[in-house]
């Protein structure tokens, strides 16, 4: 663990990504204290105020207001909560499914492997967005449903990576040595194979964070994500699109945050891969 952080701090870009992610995470967990105004309060008189405008009550709208007079900064801060929550939830559930499927499929081989792999091929044949849209329209839009939908569309990436890592080590002699002592299959799988597939798994997960935050935004942008009253970066982007020429700040700030978070997650993932896989 100590070595891990030493290695990570040597990689500047990864460290920057890591720090930014921590920063966003802190913001997300401290929203009620950080948000200067109520993100849900509408005020038609104060609509489309540019950034840095002071309103009649003496509060400054640092990032302006949107078309319903809601404070953009407050919505941005609240939005981080939902974006992070959805990404973390989907990585957790999708990762768990993918890890188990990958381990079982890779280790047992045979027909079990074939069934899972054909399933994955089938799902890969559908465009990701189309699949998510179909599932959301069936399940209805709520935060939990979005998490479920994103998990079910993203488990494939983990399953494929984990399966191939299992295949690469299951024929090594140390596995045979363990079998020769009479260790059960389950113990071999969890004690000997799992630790070896964790590093590629973590790397995939870190990249998935970026993908999933953007996926959630895409769904919200299309109006199929979380309920429209909830502030999310994707929904803010969608709202702001119509006012791009008059009030650029509505769309630009959530867009900027999305880009920064996705980039940080990717940088951190790159660094993680280097640290965990010295080859």
């Amino acid at each position, binding site marked *: 663990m100590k070595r891990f952080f030493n290695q990570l701090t040597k990689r500047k870009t990864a460290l920057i990504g890591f720090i930014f992610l921590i920063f966003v995470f802190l913001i997300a967990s401290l929203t009620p204290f950080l948000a200067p105004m109520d993100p849900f309060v509408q005020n038609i008189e104060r609509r489309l105020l540019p950034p840095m405008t002071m309103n009649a009550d003496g509060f400054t709208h640092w990032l302006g207001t949107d078309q319903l007079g809601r404070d953009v900064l407050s919505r941005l801060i609240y939005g981080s909560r939902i974006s992070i929550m959805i990404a973390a939830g989907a990585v957790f559930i999708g990762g768990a499914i993918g890890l188990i499927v990958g381990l079982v499929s890779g280790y047992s081989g045979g027909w079990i492997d074939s069934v899972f792999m054909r399933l994955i091929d089938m799902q890969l044949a559908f465009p990701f967005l189309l699949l998510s849209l179909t599932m959301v329209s069936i399940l209805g839009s709520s935060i939990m449903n979005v998490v479920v939908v994103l998990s079910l569309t993203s488990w494939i990436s983990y399953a494929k990576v984990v399966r191939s890592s299992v295949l690469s080590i299951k024929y*090594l*002699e140390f596995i*045979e*040595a363990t079998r*020769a*002592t009479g*260790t059960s299959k389950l113990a071999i799988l969890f004690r000997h194979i799992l630790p*070896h597939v964790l590093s590629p798994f973590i790397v995939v997960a870190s990249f998935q964070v970026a993908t999933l935050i953007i996926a959630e935004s895409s769904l919200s942008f299309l109006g199929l994500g979380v309920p429209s009253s909830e502030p999310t970066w994707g929904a803010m982007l969608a709202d702001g699109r119509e006012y791009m020429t008059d009030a650029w700040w509505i769309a630009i700030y959530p867009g900027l945050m999305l880009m920064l978070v996705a980039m940080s997650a990717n940088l951190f993932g790159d660094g993680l891969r280097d640290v965990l896989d010295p080859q």
Partner: protein
Amino acid sequence: MPVQIAGQQEQSIRLLDAESPLLEVNDLKKYFPLKSGLFSRSGGSVKAVDGISFTVQAGQTLGIVGESGCGKSTLGRNIIRLQEPTSGRILYNGQDMTHLNEGRLRHVRRDMQIIFQDPYASLNAKLRISEIVGEPLRVHKVGSRLERQEKIEYLMEKVGLEAEHLSRFPHEFSGGQRQRIGIARALSLNPKLIVCDEPVSALDVSVQSQVINLLQDLQDEFGLTYLFISHDLSVVRHISDRVAVMYLGKIVELAETEKIYQEAAHPYTQALLSAIPVPDPVEQKRRQRIVLKGDVPSPVHLPSGCRFHTRCPLATDHCREEEPVFEEKMEGHWVACHYG
């Protein structure tokens, strides 16, 4: 109990020595099916081990030599049931190993262990040495935690390592030390039979002799029986009581070590022996080398008759048509050749 073919039974009786052996292998076959085409039509099979019979007495070492791909590692893995034999019988202490269920097999596995060729791939890089050496004890629930710890320390000392090494990880050790760790692991359950699958091929020559000596010391001390698989004829000569020479999935010659090295009867054995360099340049120039022509035939499409005839300097039409029987030509000297 599988149905026995009369000839097989006969052979098994002939192979039985005076006292009953610790390990008896009877017409063992291992074919790997080749799959091809859309619906996995069977496209023949690789006959890695194709009808092998031998016995090993308790406390002895049987060396198995042969070139790469002749099936010697497959043979070792089949004997300790890391792979399922296609057919044939393996008797351990008179008990049929071939049809044991998972639970019984686990029990017998305490008696037979394996040491691998590659000291880098055979230790789990993510575990500490104490966990690697202690795993067999943990799996079989031998003793208390403290007793296991004592046993692990004792094993480390036996293989020439120190107890303080136990908290380290495999990458902190050299190849020879890693092989010692592999040996300690194999010894942990007090096995009787150890399959040594090229245990020194990946090591430096100086380290090779240390590991070989260690194996011999351990054999004397614990009365171990070895099945020593190697392609290195001089190493095999040093450690073995008897030697079996394999070619393309079959044993072509089996005899006491000195007989093999002094009076090799099979042309393949003779060719192998003539390839050992002699440390005397005059002698090296004078002696006759038998250089085999061509490559080893594919184990999928085996040659007709004697499978060595494509490369044999003595081959005749008879060899091409009829497969020679593996028989005892002299006392304790088994050969499969029409002319040997």
